[in-house]
């Protein structure tokens, strides 16, 4: 299995690569931004930490890389975005100004709602932004990557607002009242998923999630 991790100069590359090596030691893993290597890959991971605008500008500065990703998406090669890598699949991101994303999944990336608080009261832990920590992720639609509820690690201040709820495969709860998408996907005819959480930092649950994405049986 040829696995390619797209290098957008994001800080978590090493962690993602180490997690892939852990769950798929037999995989042929490469990290970079080579359009030809993207074209050969059987699994593509798009990790991202940082701000939407910065990562989008790095991605779109390389039109051949984008074209290679588009071609693999059209060919049905499984692609997984992580955190801002997931958010880049939106049409629009609003972090540090308005910028375009890949537009693979309808919707935009908006700031997490910060509830108005009584100024004399400390905000409850659960309403603080950025949201840092482990949350329970609940599947809302049958999907091969997350068959059951599990805890994953999140670190984000912005969230994907999907236009079509059928793209939301699993949700998590932070600020009331709305649940935010934790796993999104466009799975027919494409095989594109985006995880708002960090599987590479989510212990055994995260390793199992990555193992399913990399499995030639689960995603035949």
């Amino acid at each position, binding site marked *: 299995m040829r696995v390619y991790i797209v290098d957008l100069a994001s*800080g978590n590359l090493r962690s993602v690569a180490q997690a892939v090596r852990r769950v798929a030691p037999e995989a042929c893993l490469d990290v970079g931004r080579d359009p030809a290597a993207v074209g050969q890959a059987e699994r593509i991971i798009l990790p991202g930490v940082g701000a939407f605008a910065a990562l989008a500008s790095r991605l779109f500065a390389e039109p051949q890389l984008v074209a290679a990703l588009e071609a693999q998406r059209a060919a049905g090669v499984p692609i997984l975005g992580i955190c801002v890598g997931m958010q880049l699949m939106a049409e629009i991101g609003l972090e540090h100004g308005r910028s375009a994303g890949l537009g693979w999944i309808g919707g935009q990336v908006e700031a997490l709602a910060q509830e108005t608080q009584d100024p004399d009261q400390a905000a409850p832990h659960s309403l603080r932004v950025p949201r840092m920590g482990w949350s329970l992720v609940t599947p809302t639609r049958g999907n091969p990557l997350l068959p059951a509820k599990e805890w994953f690690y999140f670190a984000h201040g912005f969230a994907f607002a999907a236009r079509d709820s059928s793209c939301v495969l699993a949700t998590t709860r932070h600020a009331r009242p709305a649940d935010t998408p934790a796993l999104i996907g466009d799975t027919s005819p494409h095989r594109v998923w985006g995880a708002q959480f960090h599987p590479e930092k989510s212990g055994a649950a995260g390793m199992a999630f990555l193992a399913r994405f990399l499995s030639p049986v689960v995603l035949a």
Partner: protein
Amino acid sequence: MAGQAKAAGETNPVFPASTAVRIIPCLDIAEGRVVKGVKFQNLRDAGDAQQVAQFYSEHGADEICFLDITASHKGRKPLIQVLERVAEVCFVPLLAGGGVATPADMRALLCAGADKVSVNSAAVAQPELLEACAAQNGAQCVVLAIDAKRRASDRRASSDRREPSEKQEPSDQPPSQGWEVLTHGGRRATGREAVAWAQEGVARGAGEILLTSFDQDGTRAGFDLPLLRAVAAAVSVPVIASGGAGSAADMIAAVRLGGASAVLAASIFHDRETTPAAVATEFRRAGLPVREAMG
């Protein structure tokens, strides 16, 4: 939904959301080894960093913190090596800090395997550092570490050099003069007010506050709850409580009464008095949302 008594972590009147309170063992690093002192002094060896970190990640740690306490005057190379080794075996979030003075320092730690980096002395000297770090790496990577000391005019804090065995609870009232920010591992007073500094730090881009009470550090006498409360009320980002953890009850108080989103402890974990998993069990009993670790 409110009021329904469901499983903790799903629907809870105090914690309506499912983001768990984090339990964070802290590894103070000197020369690549884990050390622990009292009030930042009298360091003793507490093991190999990779082994200690792996033990915690297998025993319920939600995150692991690495602070290079010698870095401010000796450089950061040892911390980078520690992180690289730890990241090979630990797949939980890693928070690292100690001597970070530039966005490039921060970048090096992130690339070595850290998910978040704390800045302390350098941010006090040069607050724009926070903006630069957040712009490059996102606010969620930038943790402002604040070491705060009760002002000397407060009688209870002025009885300096308390022995750790003397269990002394901090006063429940904020000191009249507030708390002063210390830097350089507690060696230097800055004259800055801790609560105002936390607010400024968040306004400049910090996504989290790691708040250590200098008075309580290593004493196991409980967290400085008035300090926690004051800072948690002043900022909207998560606050990590640090300094003074002696029991799970202290940690529960830090969350319930102090408003902390996470609790950090060193001594009680290093001495194997308890484990993060055992603390999580106590949190669950107290109705706090905790992660259910998988197999």
